């Protein structure tokens, strides 16, 4: 029988807290989640990597600033530079920005308050490996929970790299341009502040996050077939 379960690594940093949720959601959507400890210098055979939410290394100095130098992140950087699919959620997005794999940086919320609630999002780009199951302009309801999610938008960032925005009037953190998620110029690295892994079952309030994670699983499966 042909192997159909793509292997998606979930990097576990000291202070990660959504790693199990991400692994559960990926498993529910047909992938084989593989937990990878931050001290690992090499990644196992993987079709995609997820950097989960949490407070890696206590978020000391700046969110993601210390995690970016962990041995696993060196391996993830090589993986991304070779075209591998990398998704960063919340703290994972902050780490990708600090590591320079994504443009911009995430700063303390404009309100200075921790925000934990569902937000409405608009899909700007439905042609990425992470959003292919969505329609362009589709509205998604996915929760956020962060204190530092105010995206500083580099002025030179091309419009087409903004994949996800907060719906008009629903920006929870003061992000410039209402940016909720950005993709790199090559299109294989994506980071977003909302937590799709917390919205994969209508019983939990919304199933919209599954559209993003299932897009990743689809794309990872294509990579799996390519290497098989």
């Amino acid at each position: 029988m042909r192997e159909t379960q793509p292997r998606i690594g979930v990097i576990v940093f000291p202070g990660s807290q959504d790693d199990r949720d991400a692994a559960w959601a990926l498993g529910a959507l047909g992938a084989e989640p593989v937990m990878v400890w931050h001290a690992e210098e090499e990644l196992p055979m993987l079709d995609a990597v997820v950097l989960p939410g949490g407070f890696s290394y206590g978020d000391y100095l700046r969110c993601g600033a210390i995690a970016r130098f962990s041995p696993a992140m060196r391996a993830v950087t090589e993986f991304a530079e070779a075209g591998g699919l990398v998704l960063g959620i919340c703290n994972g997005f902050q780490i990708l920005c600090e590591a320079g794999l994504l443009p911009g940086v995430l700063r303390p919320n404009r309100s200075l308050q921790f925000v934990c609630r569902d937000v409405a999002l608009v899909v700007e780009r439905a042609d990425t490996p992470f959003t292919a199951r969505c329609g362009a302009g589709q509205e998604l309801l996915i929760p956020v929970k962060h204190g530092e999610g105010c995206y500083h938008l580099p002025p030179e960032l091309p419009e087409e790299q903004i994949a996800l925005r907060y719906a008009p009037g629903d920006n929870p953190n003061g992000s410039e341009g209402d940016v909720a998620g950005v993709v790199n110029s090559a299109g294989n690295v994506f980071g977003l502040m909302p937590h799709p892994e917390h919205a994969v079952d209508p019983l939990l309030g919304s199933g919209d996050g599954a559209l993003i994670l299932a897009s990743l699983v689809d794309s990872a499966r294509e990579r799996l077939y390519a290497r098989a």
Partner: protein
Amino acid sequence: MRAVVLVRPKTGILDPQGQAVETSLKHLGFAVDEARVGKVIDLELNAEDEAAARTEIERMCEQLLANPLIESYEIELAEAE
């Protein structure tokens, strides 16, 4: 050698902490026009001379201590007592 690194939000970068401090100071009756909040990092290091120390600390700032997209830094050097 001892060094102090001052890390500040760059001009034009929104600083909600600074705004909160400014508002509080105004509530207390102080006449302030603006407050910005940064970080102080005290370092103790071995270096041959001031120039070498400065070069080394600049590398630390570029790689880790500051995010050049949003923060500027200043280095002050002092001989250890």
